[in-house]
């Protein structure tokens, strides 16, 4: 787990009770997705877009999270995350 303890504490602080009911598919890349995306938001943002975003859409969304929303995701993780989302939650 590469996430700094400080960020983990933010995550715990802002998690709400119903959030644990969202489960992502147990496939390669899931750990990176959970670690990076759930830092700032619940994973229902992902499942809600499963029928909406194709690979290009997920690339754009992940790019927005990095470039506009300040997510500290390196290029290697970015590729893993986009692949996971496109393969498991792509239109």
């Amino acid at each position: 787990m590469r996430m700094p303890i400080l960020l983990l504490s933010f995550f715990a602080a802002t998690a709400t009770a119903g959030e644990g009911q969202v489960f992502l598919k147990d496939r390669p890349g899931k750990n990176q997705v959970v670690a990076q995306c759930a830092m700032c938001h619940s994973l229902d943002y992902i499942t809600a877009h499963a029928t909406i975003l194709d690979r290009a859409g997920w690339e754009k969304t992940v790019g927005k999270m990095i470039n506009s929303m300040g997510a500290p995701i390196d290029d290697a993780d970015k590729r893993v995350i986009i692949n996971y989302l496109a393969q498991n939650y792509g239109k």
Partner: protein
Amino acid sequence: MVDRRDFIKKTASSLAALGGLALLQRSGLAAATRAEASTIVDALSGKEALIKQTSRPPNYETPTHYFDAPFTPNNQFFVRYHNAVIPEVKIGDWRLRIGGDAARTPLEFSLDQLRKDFEQVEIAALCLCSGNRRGLFEPPVPGLQWGFGAMGNALWRGVRLKDVLAGAGIDKSALEVSLAGADSGVLPTTPNFVKSLPLAKALDENTLIAFEMNGEPLPHWNGFPARLIIPGWTATYWIKHLTALNVLSKPFDGYWMKTAYRIPKDRFPSGQFSSQETETAMPITEILVNSLITNLADGQAMTNAKSIEIKGVAWDCGDGIARVEVSTDGGVNWHQAALKQDYGRFSWRQWRWVFEPKHPGQYRIMARATSHSGVSQPLEPIPNPSGYHHNAVQKITIHLA
């Protein structure tokens, strides 16, 4: 007010209890689809069960049948946040700070001072998310897949923004007023949800800093202890947990103005926000004329129905609703509905029409509002990249046996 540092201290110990990320790493269940996700019902503290779009930040919409009341009760009012750190503000600690390069005298107010120093006024106004009904666009548009319930009508009490700004000595160079609240992103690199208004809208007599909603203090999830009320404009400007106003001589260039909440200029009415317009795009501002049937559901079956009351609400940007028409034959014939009490031009207007079907069968029910400026709803929504301003005529089918 809880600042970010206190927040870390207070919550670090809860990390162990929550089990950190393990909470979200369990697997085994299939993901909810677009349609299923919109019907997850869940309650936030102090709220009744609402339709959950997302947990964190919390985004919850109000089920349509709650809109039968003229004012949406506080515990049924929708919740919409962009960022997940939402401090529980303590009144004693709360301050509103006013500054900016076009304000000559920086000011600071406690809630008590705001209440005592300025005339208190009340206004009925619809709070409507820009993306309400985004989930109805075809093809689908990314973003929260709202149904009909990212809106609510309330009676807001507070003070006029123009009265509060007057003491700050607004300079001739003033162009916009930026608006910020106490909520923030989890990471310091995430932009805060900061918006701006053109000076004229900030100084409009109907623009309020409200601290009461339907006769009670604002609920935490709706902006306690003070939020902006921008009647006639979509809720993106109605900043919750308001903490800072800056009078600016240049267009505010934060992400939430420059990039987000923008619409193409070529297919919507003028936005009255020229300092934020480009050649092709402008910020979303005024609410479009719209209506909603509140007491019938698409696909509903009824037996022995001789007389069916069709009820709903209609609204616009503040020109006021001139008429609402109802069709029971898919738009061939239209009948004028009765408008109920008028609570002011920024409130929604309730309406009703009684349908007396001659025979059993399937009926295509539609409702269409027209404003006092003569503008009516389109049959299809106006396509735009972010799925805003869905105001197409609603079409529902009922089956009478």
